[in-house]
């Protein structure tokens, strides 16, 4: 496959070369863009956090890097990405080690039609049936390698078709090593397609997708479905300031390592509503996933080879301590909801002052679904979730007793003058660490978190920003305090120091300071940053995927650029 892609790319390039008179003209119309990044680390032993020389085992240096080149000539474009993990940074999957060209593609795009061969990223609807994407900071890439066609006969009516197999680190595809994925998607926008509705106040669009994966059945014990279909329908409806969006997905039975080989069908449901007017926004959503893991290899349990994407319904926090316990979707079953209110207290009001004041309130909760036992085939007993059974039955709208997650947070930000602004955040969190991090038996973490962030501008270019944070909990590692100081000189420089102190750790030997210092330089699209310090053990999540980061100590250097 890859060879064929390359041949095509060269053929096109050399066709251009052959016609020499046209060559310079072609070059003039060509566009080339690219980007690269280098993330290097030097790890050092650190007794306090338990990193010894033998653990590092000579691998003091680690680096992840990529380089990306895209070429465009009118309707034709092609691209290639080089990646290297030599060896990967701490916390990245060891299977990432190596280097190569995992992303090679060429495509032709006209007004109504597009055709791509090679590696590509695609999403149908919210991703409940299919989403391929890459997230560099997590080392995650589930791109499809194959072909994609899109067709738009009239503006507002779109069809897509995809076919291929997914990337799994550096493991090449061999027969039966993983599944083959194919899918189609259609979307109809009533306001664009029907002239009568083009000026309508009502906005309406609908869509549907069907995805199927094929994987051979090599199980000695069970007869497994070789083709597993996953289908979804979606709707987007808006009137004036009100908007409603929903998607429902149904997957046929798909026994896998994730669901412990149960023959149950899967369901996914998302609905969200918003009301927005200037200075005020309201958001409410409900979701439910029941046995919705969908991978192109049923034997895989960790991140990787996901065909679909199950969006979490919780706020993404980014302060040092509010992001200590991040949420992570439970594909076997979860039910939850979220509310958010954004309000801007107007300028020149009593509370708003000269610049106004922002208020954001957010609440999210995720519970387990209810699981009722089913009959065990060939016996007269019942059980829940046993391999070879139908798993469980579950009432659709009923919340299970186990609370996986709860987050109530309020954020207020206010600019006091041209020079000074501040932000305050309070958060109450419930975090089922036993389920979400697999620390079986550990009690659920209940924590109160407070953050204060202030920025003072000395001149139009120089500013100091500082954060003071606290996390208070009886569980897990106990109480934390954190501070951060950052000085920026626009447009080029920053220097920052921070410390996270686990002062309330029940084990006094583990009351550790995690100190870091960093500085960086930015010139246009090139950024260089160097950090020295101690990294606490934790979880980094982007979107719906998380990566555990082990504790480490040392230097990290990031160089990133694009053109």
């Amino acid at each position, binding site marked *: 496959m890859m060879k064929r892609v390359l041949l095509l790319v060269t053929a096109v390039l050399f066709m251009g070369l052959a016609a020499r008179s046209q060559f310079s003209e072609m070059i003039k119309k060509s566009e080339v*863009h690219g980007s690269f990044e280098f993330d290097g680390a030097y790890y050092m032993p650190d007794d306090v956090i338990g990193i010894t020389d033998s653990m590092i085992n000579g691998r003091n240096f680690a680096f992840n890097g990529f380089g990306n080149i*895209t070429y465009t000539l009118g309707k034709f474009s092609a691209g290639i990405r080089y990646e290297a993990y030599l060896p990967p940074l701490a916390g990245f999957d060891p299977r990432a080690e190596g280097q190569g060209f995992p992303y090679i593609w060429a495509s032709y795009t006209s007004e109504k039609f597009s055709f791509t061969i090679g590696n590509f990223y695609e999403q149908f609807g919210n991703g409940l049936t299919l989403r391929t994407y890459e997230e560099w900071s997590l080392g995650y890439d589930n791109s499809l390698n194959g072909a994609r066609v899109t067709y738009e006969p009239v503006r507002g009516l779109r069809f897509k078709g995809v076919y291929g197999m997914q990337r799994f680190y550096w493991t090449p595809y061999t027969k039966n090593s993983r599944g083959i994925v194919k899918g189609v998607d259609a979307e109809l926008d009533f306001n664009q397609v029907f002239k009568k509705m083009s000026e309508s106040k009502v906005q309406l669009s609908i869509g549907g997708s069907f995805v199927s994966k094929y994987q051979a059945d090599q199980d000695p014990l069970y007869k497994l479905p070789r083709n597993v279909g996953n289908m979804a329908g979606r709707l987007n409806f808006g009137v004036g300031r009100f908007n409603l969006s929903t998607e429902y997905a149904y997957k046929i039975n798909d026994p896998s390592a994730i669901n412990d080989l149960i023959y149950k069908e899967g369901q996914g449901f998302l609905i969200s509503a918003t009301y927005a007017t200037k200075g005020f926004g309201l958001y409410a959503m409900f979701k439910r996933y029941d046995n919705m893991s969908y991978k192109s290899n049923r034997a895989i349990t960790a991140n990787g080879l996901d065909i679909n994407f199950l969006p979490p319904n919780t706020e993404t926090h980014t302060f040092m301590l509010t992001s200590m316990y991040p949420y992570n979707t439970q594909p076997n079953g979860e039910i939850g909801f979220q509310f958010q209110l954004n309000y801007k207290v107007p300028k020149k009001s009593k509370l708003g002052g000269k610049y106004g004041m922002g208020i954001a309130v957010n609440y999210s909760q995720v519970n387990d679904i209810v699981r009722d036992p089913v009959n065990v085939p060939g016996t007269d007993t019942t059980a829940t979730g046993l391999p070879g059974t139908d798993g469980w039955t579950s009432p659709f709208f009923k919340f299970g007793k186990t609370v996986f997650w709860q987050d109530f947070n309020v954020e207020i930000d206010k600019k006091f003058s041209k020079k000074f602004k501040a932000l305050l955040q309070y958060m109450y969190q419930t975090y089922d660490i036993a389920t979400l991090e697999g620390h079986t038996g550990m009690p659920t973490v209940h924590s109160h978190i407070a953050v204060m962030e202030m920025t003072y501008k000395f001149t139009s270019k120089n500013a100091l920003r500082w954060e003071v944070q606290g996390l208070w909990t009886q569980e897990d590692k106990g109480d934390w305090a954190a501070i951060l100081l950052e000085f920026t000189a626009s447009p080029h420089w920053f220097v920052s120091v921070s410390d996270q102190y686990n002062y309330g750790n029940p084990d006094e030997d583990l009351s550790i300071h995690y100190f870091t210092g960093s500085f960086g330089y930015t010139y246009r*699209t090139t950024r260089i940053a160097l950090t020295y310090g101690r990294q606490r053990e934790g979880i980094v999540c982007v979107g719906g995927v998380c990566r555990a980061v082990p504790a480490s100590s040392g230097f990290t250097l990031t160089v990133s650029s694009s053109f």
Partner: protein
Amino acid sequence: MKKTIILMAVLFLGFTMYAQESSERKKLPSVNIKTLDGKTFNTQDIYNDGKPVVVSFWALWCKPCKKEMDAYSENYEDWQEETGVKIYAVSIDDARSTAKVLPFVSGKGWEMEVLLDPNGDFKRAMNVNMIPHTFLLDGNGNIVYQHTSYYEGLEDELYELIEKVAAGEDISNH
């Protein structure tokens, strides 16, 4: 196989380097993304009637990005009056929070054009490694300046460039 790939890659790189040298223009690619009410929007429709355009990538989870947008928002009225500039704020939030972008933007009172790029298609096509990443286009749609990361006060530097571009100055040696 491996040798072929490396050879091809080197050839491709060499060719693109050559093309890069002689390339005359840098325009926005054609990518289908979404508007805040869920409509499909082609990025080649980013247009401002011969006046400068700013395209800035941000996300709800990116604090410096939100500060940058706040800074643009505070100045937007003045900037528009003086230069006619139009700002497109492209959110790369994924399906987890695309629906939250509209109420957030309204709650903030931002007046910029906001677009959604939930699977990073536009971001990839623009070679954006990290956000915030801001592009400045002249009246003919040529990308004349770009910058990554945001520090307090950076908006002033950007505005100086917008003024120059609006006045038809060449800022390629800036």
